[in-house]
């Protein structure tokens, strides 16, 4: 589905134009717009006064639009405990605190950085309106009917709109102010909020109905990637302590992971092309070598292979070097001595070891995919090419491989995504990849939950993105056969 499906045009009759789903969609769009014009958050927290058990008080006024957990973070004086926190509330300034008013005000503050997550939450329902209006416009204006793609786009965004509205309120009152807010009516959102919330729910309902009708995908891939990315980003923005810090710590690990994966993958493709050709070769020697490689390495876990390369290979080099030096003692050739010493001192860098390990292990799996792809091409193709005078290699290059690629591509794409995830194992080799950076941070701070949530989200964004790229390439290379 997805882009292959492209535009699914459905003819709409006049009766269908008054289809309930389109009517509900129109009402939803109108309500969201109206809600953003009505008062939404008429009051907001401007400061807090904390009273301690020794009767001293600390007052804080919040310079920013959106408050943080500042009042919980003030340290009480020695031997005193917090006895009360009173929240100070002030009226909103622009457009009676309507949605648009808040957006305007937020964009005018000089520390946009701090209000970015609030702005995001407020913007999501408005963003959903754009594709929704596009759907409506097409349905009303042209007889060509509905565009499946814009419906799934609209649905993907609208799906998050109600939750985003609720999140924006949480921002207004702050997480720890929630209880306070609940018994103070002036901190509750007012009419505009509820109207916009109702409107965004109507959007979801209407678009869900439309998407069922057209049997198009509910979520477009970029919406999923965006959703996960936004969750990660909101974590970093709303709770910079510790998420921003974790992010800054593990960020370079992402690049290391990507570098390892991409470089390994290039080598894997080369190795498995050779391996696959070897496995279909008629020469028993080539076939034997290729089969030995594939059968042997597929049976050993990646982790064990990596540990072998990292810990056991240097010993092997050492022994080999010793052997060469012994040979030098016998035949007295000058170059043997330097070669022996070099071999004894040979050490792979962590990065090289990681790439070697991944290449050798995945090369075996992907070789089998190549072999299956090559042998899936009817032997008549090879015979026709040979009968025209092409050599075996020419026939492979021009006839067999171009056809096999289409068979090979989907499973090889899957292997790429697997490789991306399995690359986390190279963290045992002292390579500072994403996983290892996470482990290092956790060892320092013991913030295990926060660290691994963020690491997991990073991997998720990477794999989601990679699998969609793979799907796109697949779609580009399919042909009618």
């Amino acid at each position, binding site marked *: 589905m997805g882009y292959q499906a492209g535009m699914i045009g459905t003819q709409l009759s006049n009766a269908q134009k008054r289809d309930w789903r389109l009517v509900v969609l129109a009402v939803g769009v109108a309500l969201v717009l109206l809600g953003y014009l009505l008062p939404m958050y008429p009051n907001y927290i401007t400061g807090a006064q904390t009273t301690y058990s020794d009767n001293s008080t600390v007052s804080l006024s919040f310079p920013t639009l959106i408050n943080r957990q500042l009042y919980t973070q003030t340290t009480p004086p020695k031997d005193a405990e917090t006895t009360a926190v009173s929240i100070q509330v002030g009226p909103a300034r622009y457009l009676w605190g309507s949605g648009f008013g808040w957006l305007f005000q937020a964009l005018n503050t000089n520390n946009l950085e701090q209000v970015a997550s609030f702005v995001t939450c407020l913007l999501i329902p408005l963003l959903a309106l754009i594709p929704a209006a596009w759907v409506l416009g097409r349905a009303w204006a042209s007889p060509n009917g509905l565009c499946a793609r814009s419906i799934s786009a609209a649905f993907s965004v609208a799906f998050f709109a109600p939750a985003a509205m609720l999140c924006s309120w949480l921002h207004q009152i702050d997480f720890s102010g929630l209880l306070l807010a609940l018994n103070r009516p002036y901190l509750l959102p007012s009419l505009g909020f509820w109207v916009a919330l109702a409107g965004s729910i109507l959007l979801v309902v209407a678009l869900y109905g439309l998407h069922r009708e057209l049997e198009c995908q509910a979520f477009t891939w970029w919406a999923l990637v965006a959703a996960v990315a936004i969750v990660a980003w909101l974590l970093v923005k709303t709770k910079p302590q510790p998420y921003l810090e974790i992010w800054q710590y593990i960020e370079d690990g992402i690049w290391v992971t990507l570098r390892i994966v991409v470089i390994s993958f290039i080598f894997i493709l080369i190795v498995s092309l050779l391996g696959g050709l070897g496995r279909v070769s008629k020469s028993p020697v080539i076939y034997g070598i290729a089969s030995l490689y594939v059968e042997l390495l597929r049976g050993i876990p990646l982790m064990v292979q990596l540990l072998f390369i990292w810990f056991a290979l240097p010993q092997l080099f050492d022994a080999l070097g010793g052997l060469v030096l012994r040979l030098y003692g016998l035949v007295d050739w000058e170059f043997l001595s330097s070669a022996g010493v070099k071999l004894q001192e040979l050490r792979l860098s962590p990065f090289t070891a990681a790439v070697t390990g991944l290449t050798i292990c995945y090369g075996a799996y992907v070789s089998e995919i190549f072999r299956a792809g090559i042998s899936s091409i*009817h032997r*008549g193709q090879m*015979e*026709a*090419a040979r*009968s025209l*005078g*092409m050599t075996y290699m020419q026939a492979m290059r021009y*006839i067999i491989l171009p056809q096999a690629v289409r068979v090979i591509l989907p499973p090889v794409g899957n292997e790429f995504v697997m490789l991306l995830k399995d690359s986390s194992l190279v963290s045992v080799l002292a390579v500072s990849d994403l996983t290892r950076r996470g482990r290092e941070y956790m060892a320092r701070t013991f913030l295990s939950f926060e660290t691994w949530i963020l690491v997991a989200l990073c991997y998720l964004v990477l794999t989601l993105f990679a699998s969609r790229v793979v799907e796109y390439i697949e779609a580009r290379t399919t*042909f009618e056969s």
Partner: protein
Amino acid sequence: MESPASDKRPIIAIRNISKSFEHGRVVALDNVSTDIYPSEVVVIIGPSGSGKSTLLRCINHLETPDAGTIEVDGVLMTDAANINKVRMEVGMVFQQFNLFPHLTVMENICLAQRVVRKRTLAESSEIALDLLNKVGIPEKADAYPNQISGGQQQRVAIARALAMQPKIMLFDEPTSALDPEMIKEVVDVMLDLARDGMTMVVVSHEMGFARNAASRIIFMDDGQIIEDSSPQQLFNDPKEQRTRDFLGKILH
């Protein structure tokens, strides 16, 4: 058609070839010898499994004979270098067409010209267009094989083989995968070729073609050549009982 000109040298000389499969359990060819002369059209008939395809495929070395020699145009087919040289001179047309599905009709015809004969794109396209005209489908040049009918595909396959300018054409049941209404268009192309003096070896039970074009008919059974004679002789007065039985079956 006149009988083989005995003063000419044979263009294909097959000497005592044998071939078996599955470690000798299936004998496909059993000590077969025959000569084929330039411009001859030889039709091979025989029951299923009698070794007709195997004989044809031995001529351009798609199968390697276990024993015996084959000489094509004076070149003995033994080492690898000779095989590719001979294959350029021998075109082959398959029962299942075997067009390259990922290439257009035009590319199908041009590819081998460019990588084997080293012709330029312009040269090869010119030859390809000529041949497409000859087989009667110039308008399908940019179609993919799955977009044209079986008869058209087989005609493209013939054009593809002819583009290498072979001296000999081998046909392995070129019409038996075709619907009846498409057989004629392919047979017509083959008749044209025969008239132009191409040396052809044709495995086919298409009796219309055999009667009109064949200079010799070879009847094979059990991996051996049972009878080898002119069409008139073979159809009207076959020498062997086995030939008579077989003709009775296919001619009703």
